[in-house]
């Protein structure tokens, strides 16, 4: 045993000695400031621990840290996987057979459209230095966005990887909205609405919450007026899309025959496959939002799992008790609700916090889709409001109540005084701003689209199904 313990230490000692010798020689021959072994080791430890690099010392690691970069590329791909095909199948299975392709086409079209917007101005508006509301033009057309990290956000991740990771969030957010207006909105109207909505609602909101100089970036911006926190997008992604979805579905109007004809999902199997993909992809979304392969990511991975599982059982359990049977759609909806609610909290809470979130997520969202929807009578076709708006809002509030420095030391940087005390008040303020921006933006854009290209197909086209009318294809040729 002693020999085994001794050997590596001896080798390590020799290694350091040899290195030290080399450095002495180089330092003697060259007048340029060469980092000492100590400084290089500090730099290396900063990489391993995901800490900021020391500014005045040039380490010898050129560019991003490979481990963090590898995880963030994986995470970015996982978040894309949530939309294509996760969300596409989740939503696609829930519509009637004649509209399945329209949902897939909306997800595909939004992915391309938002990518182009992101390249042109989106990334810059969100993450370039600007004011508290909107970023500037510094990174427009992704200029200056290369493989070197941007230490404002992630010191060990290439900025191009960071930009692509954040872009996947920008893609899935408007894709969530289409669930509320599924089966009855013209394809051109969807794309025009989304393009304008990104510019008016998403880019400013994402900058306010995540931009280094953002109005509501409580964790990192010491000058933030509203010291709220949102780990992976409870306000930016779920509240914004969910509340916008409600207004858009009210403005677009109900599907023809709503309440009279059967509008049951055409394939619960596709829906369940999509749910599984969403859950897997959500690890990129939540754990990836740590922007490093570090302990915060590890904690988010755990809390995400717990909340999703508990909410799934809570939703289906509530169905079983109150309505007699646990349904596959109940389990699936519970999974998504749990993931939505834990999104803003996942990097800030402990395992027990995640269990509380899971229970509330499952039960509250279930009641929203069961009672609230029936009481108010709106036709939110795929329950974007019931799951994403209700869940996102609940999550933003619960994050304020359950966040703890025990789970994430970064909360002690600027928020030491309010975490566990008045953080929830700041969360309420963030909820209010998100609501106002989403609601006002959506109403303005929806009416603009209505009076230009028009929102709906003709009644005859709607009855025929959007697959044939808008895309000239049928989802299933054999039946």
């Amino acid at each position, binding site marked *: 045993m002693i020999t085994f313990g001794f050997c590596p230490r001896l080798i390590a000692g020799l290694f350091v000695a040899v290195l030290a010798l080399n450095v002495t020689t180089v330092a003697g021959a060259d007048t340029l400031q060469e980092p000492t072994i100590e400084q290089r080791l500090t730099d290396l430890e900063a990489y391993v621990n995901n800490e900021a690099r020391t500014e005045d010392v040039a380490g010898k690691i050129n560019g991003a840290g490979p481990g963090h970069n590898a995880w963030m590329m994986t995470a970015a791909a996982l978040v894309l996987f949530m939309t294509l095909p996760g969300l596409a199948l989740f939503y696609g299975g829930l519509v009637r057979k004649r509209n399945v392709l329209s949902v897939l086409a909306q997800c595909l079209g939004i992915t391309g459209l938002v990518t182009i917007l992101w390249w042109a101005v989106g990334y810059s508006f969100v993450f370039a230095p600007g004011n508290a509301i909107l970023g500037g033009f510094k990174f427009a057309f992704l200029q200056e966005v290369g493989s070197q990290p941007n230490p404002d956000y992630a010191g060990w991740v290439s900025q191009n990887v960071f930009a692509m990771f954040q872009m996947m969030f920008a893609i899935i957010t408007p894709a969530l909205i289409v669930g509320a207006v599924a089966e009855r909105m013209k394809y051109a109207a969807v794309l025009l609405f989304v393009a304008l909505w990104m510019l008016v609602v998403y880019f400013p909101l994402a900058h306010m919450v995540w931009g280094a100089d953002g109005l509501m970036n409580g964790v990192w911006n010491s000058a933030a007026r509203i010291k709220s926190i949102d780990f992976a997008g409870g306000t930016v992604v779920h509240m914004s899309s969910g509340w916008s979805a409600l207004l858009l579905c009210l403005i677009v109007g109900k599907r023809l025959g709503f309440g009279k004809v059967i509008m*049951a999902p055409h394939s619960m199997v596709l829906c369940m496959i999509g749910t599984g993909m969403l859950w897997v992809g959500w690890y990129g979304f939540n754990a990836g939002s740590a922007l490093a392969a570090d302990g915060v990511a590890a904690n988010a991975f755990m809390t995400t799992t717990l909340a999703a599982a508990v909410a799934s059982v809570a939703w289906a359990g509530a169905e079983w008790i109150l309505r007699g049977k646990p349904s596959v759609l109940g389990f699936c909806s519970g999974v998504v609700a749990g993931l939505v609610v834990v999104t803003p909290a996942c990097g800030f809470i402990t395992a027990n916090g995640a269990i509380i979130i899971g229970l509330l997520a499952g039960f509250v969202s279930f009641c929203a889709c069961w009672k609230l929807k029936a009481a108010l009578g709106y036709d939110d076709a795929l329950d974007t409001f019931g799951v994403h708006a209700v869940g996102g809002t609940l999550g933003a509030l619960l994050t304020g109540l359950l966040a703890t420095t025990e789970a994430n030391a970064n909360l002690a940087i600027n928020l030491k005084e309010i975490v566990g005390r008045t953080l929830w008040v700041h969360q309420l303020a963030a909820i209010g701003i998100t609501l106002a921006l989403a609601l006002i933006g959506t109403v303005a854009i929806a009416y603009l689209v209505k009076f230009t290209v028009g929102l709906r197909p003709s009644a005859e086209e709607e009855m025929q199904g959007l697959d044939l009318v808008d895309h000239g294809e049928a989802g299933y040729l054999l039946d």
Partner: protein
Amino acid sequence: MKMIEAIIKPFKLEDVKEALAAIGVEGMTVSEVKGFGRQKGHTEIYRGSEYTVDFLPKIKLEIVVTDAQVEAALKAVAAAAHTGKIGDGKLFVFPIEQAVRIRTAERDDQAI
């Protein structure tokens, strides 16, 4: 010759097929159909939405037999498809004028 059209519960198909084979009936045509009688439909719930589905899945059998076999075939099908619960189905008997076996050109009783 007579044709028996039997509407039965889907899970009873195997029992009915065996019962008919036991009395020497050697052929049948089977279709998956939807419909309702006194049983009416059922309710499906998808989150907040409840739908009453009027048409239930059933199996329709078309069996052509000789006049002598009709009674035995009716009894066999009725016994095999019986559960005693609502929705067991119905049997209809039609006269058949002619029958031809395509391969051999045999006619009527020889053809079925």
